[in-house]
């Protein structure tokens, strides 16, 4: 069915308060009668349907990856545990990392919530390339299935770590289809990501609503623009490396093998040139989510909007130049170059943290579940980020590399991202589904997850400094490490229980719906102007866009944003159809 996408032409002051649960207005021009049920799921090109598909699938992947993690932690509570064999253990941590990074964190961030929110936040009716968007999802789903198929093959799933270093990943050391399925899965999900990146950049460049200049876009959208550019820079490099690895494995080439004149080290260069931007591709969307949540629950605008944009662009630029800090112990990389670049990334990250604090400063903080998760994110990321600074110094990296100190660092950072994801979920689920998630259950989930995260990561730092290497199934020569490992496992268990509480919350809220309305949080972005859930093509009307908070300006015209030290409101250019900006002394 063809659709003519139209932008609305009217602004109706009364519209925001009308929020019928099914999202239809009486005089809706676009009564949408598309297919329903499974046919809708298979054929829809609506970014909202695709976004929800991604969110649901990636959440399932998170639970699968989490299951692997719990088994790993159960194995490690005892120095000579026989819960799983060495071979199974290698598969478990490989697939835990691969599922979490390739199949959960990335897609959730840049294709799930971003797909849903970016067109809404810029006032667009859909993404720039809707069918390409749908293709991205099918490549992601089939890629996920491909990777997990490895468990059903004779040789088992891939078992060479989520980084697949050569020569361990070549045909001699890792024969069997589990490895090839891993490679093929990453090619599918890699192209899925590239197409999502294209869509993000094109939509943000071309489909913004009138008046929404680049410097009036919400920070979540800004971050997604930068993520889109990073995806286009980094993912083709990974895909190229995977093709080379496949050729080495099956076509007799010698790119990464010493016999035949190849250079195994080249795999590490190629992999990490993608790998480091990838962690910022993972992190920036969650930074953006938290940057949307904190101002709303502080009842203030974001502090340092332009500084945030500068920080994001600086992080993106620097992230392309730090890849070999994962390779300091190879003895074959330019140590001082990568050291200074890696240390410098702390600066824009610090700017962001100070801006979040500045947003809360002087505000009226309301601790909804979403806000609790956002604050938990800031605290956890502060700690995890600081330990990264040690790793940026080669002498300090020599003693911590491949020990549990590194494992603690990245799990601390990644768990911070998960807390940020939960902030985003509790914030936007009312918009997406029109129903609220239960707040008391959410707060229980928060405390379990936040405290669990600290109990999980802090002992890992210590046992790493005591010398425990990573990717080891047993530690028979060092039984003194057992106590710390037990604490880590307790923390992991708490995180797992918090996820169960989340699942219970989802089911409970589904069965006992509380209607959300257009804007239950008195939030700032354009997406809160329309109904919950939004109608087909998102908007039947739009407010005037005069700042990065169009909905706030519409609802609170007497409280525009001020510079520090300013006391009177700044009058913006009046527009004929909006309520005029009153000046308040």
């Amino acid at each position: 069915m063809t659709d003519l996408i139209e932008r609305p032409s009217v602004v109706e002051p009364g519209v925001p308060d009308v929020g019928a649960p099914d999202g239809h207005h009486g005089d809706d021009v676009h009564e949408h009668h598309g297919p329903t049920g499974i046919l809708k799921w298979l054929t829809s090109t609506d970014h909202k349907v695709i976004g929800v598909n991604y969110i649901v699938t990636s959440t399932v992947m998170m639970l699968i990856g989490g299951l692997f993690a719990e088994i790993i932690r159960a194995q490690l509570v005892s120095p000579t545990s026989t819960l799983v064999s060495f071979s199974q253990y290698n598969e478990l941590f490989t697939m835990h990392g691969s599922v979490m990074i390739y199949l959960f964190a990335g897609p959730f961030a840049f294709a799930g919530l971003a797909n849903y929110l970016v067109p809404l936040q810029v006032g667009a009716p859909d993404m720039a390339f809707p069918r390409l968007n749908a293709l991205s999802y099918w490549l992601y789903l089939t890629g996920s299935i491909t990777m997990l198929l490895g468990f059903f093959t004779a040789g088992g799933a891939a078992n060479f770590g989520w980084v697949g270093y050569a020569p361990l990943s070549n045909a001699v050391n890792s024969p069997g289809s589990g490895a090839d399925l891993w490679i093929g899965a990453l090619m599918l999900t890699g192209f899925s990501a590239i197409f999502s990146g294209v869509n993000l950049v094109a939509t943000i460049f071309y489909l913004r609503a009138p008046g929404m200049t680049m410097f009036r876009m919400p920070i979540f959208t800004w971050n997604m623009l930068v993520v889109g550019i990073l995806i286009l820079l980094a993912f083709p490099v990974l895909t190229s490396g995977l093709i080379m690895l496949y050729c080495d494995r099956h076509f007799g080439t010698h790119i990464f093998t010493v016999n035949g004149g190849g250079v195994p080290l080249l795999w590490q260069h190629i992999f990490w040139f993608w790998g480091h931007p990838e962690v910022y591709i993972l992190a920036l969307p969650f930074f953006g989510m938290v940057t949307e949540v904190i101002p709303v629950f502080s009842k203030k605008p974001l502090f340092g909007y332009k500084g945030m944009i500068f920080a994001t662009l600086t992080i993106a630029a620097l992230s392309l130049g730090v890849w070999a800090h994962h390779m300091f112990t190879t003895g074959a990389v330019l140590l001082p170059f990568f050291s200074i670049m890696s240390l410098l990334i702390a600066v824009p990250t610090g700017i962001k943290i100070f801006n979040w604090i500045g947003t809360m400063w002087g505000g009226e903080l309301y601790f909804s579940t979403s806000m609790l998760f956002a604050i938990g994110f800031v605290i956890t990321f502060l700690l995890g980020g600081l330990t990264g600074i040690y790793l940026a110094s080669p002498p300090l990296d020599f003693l911590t590399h491949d020990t549990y100190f590194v494992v603690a660092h990245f799990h601390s950072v990644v768990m911070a991202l998960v807390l940020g994801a939960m902030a985003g979920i509790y914030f936007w689920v009312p918009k997406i589904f029109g129903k609220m998630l239960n707040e008391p259950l959410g707060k229980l989930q928060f405390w379990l997850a936040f405290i669990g995260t600290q109990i999980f990561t802090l002992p890992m730092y210590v046992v790493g400094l005591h010398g425990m290497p990573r990717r080891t199934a047993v530690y028979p020569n060092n039984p003194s490490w057992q106590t710390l490992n037990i604490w880590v496992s307790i923390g992991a268990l708490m995180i797992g229980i918090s996820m169960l509480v989340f699942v219970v919350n989802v089911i409970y809220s589904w069965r006992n719906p509380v209607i959300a309305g257009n804007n239950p949080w008195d939030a700032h972005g354009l997406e809160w102007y329309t109904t919950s859930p939004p109608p087909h093509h998102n908007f039947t009307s739009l407010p005037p866009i005069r700042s990065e908070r169009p909905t706030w300006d519409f609802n609170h015209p007497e409280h525009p944003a001020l510079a520090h030290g300013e006391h009177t409101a700044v009058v913006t250019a009046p527009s004929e159809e909006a309520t005029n900006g009153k000046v308040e002394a």
Partner: protein
Amino acid sequence: MLKQESLILLGLGVFFGLMGIVYWMWGHEDGGGVMLLGSFLLGMLPGFYYLWWYRRTGGNRPEDREDATIQEGAGVVDSFPSTSIWPFVLGLGCFSMVLALVFGAWFAVPAIGLLVAAFVGVTAESRRGGDV
């Protein structure tokens, strides 16, 4: 202005170029040097293209002006199908092709069939304005 968008890309490209020059001259490592050169190009090529396009069209879209009104953007933006089976078919074709790489060339037979059907279907869908 499409100018700001092009400046982001050009700025990143220049930064990667500078970083690449410093890295290659200091470290003489070819892998990273080539990848940074690629990043430089990915900033410069689309960046210059957007800049050229901005100059050519005058760059005065409603979303670039701070005082634009909602009425200016009203009306039909574009047309595309709101439902289409072809992304799913194309996705299945790519999946099948990957399985061919792993399990054997016979998987390529349904793969090619699905891929051809999808390309034909998408093209026809676009030409006919979406009525499949």
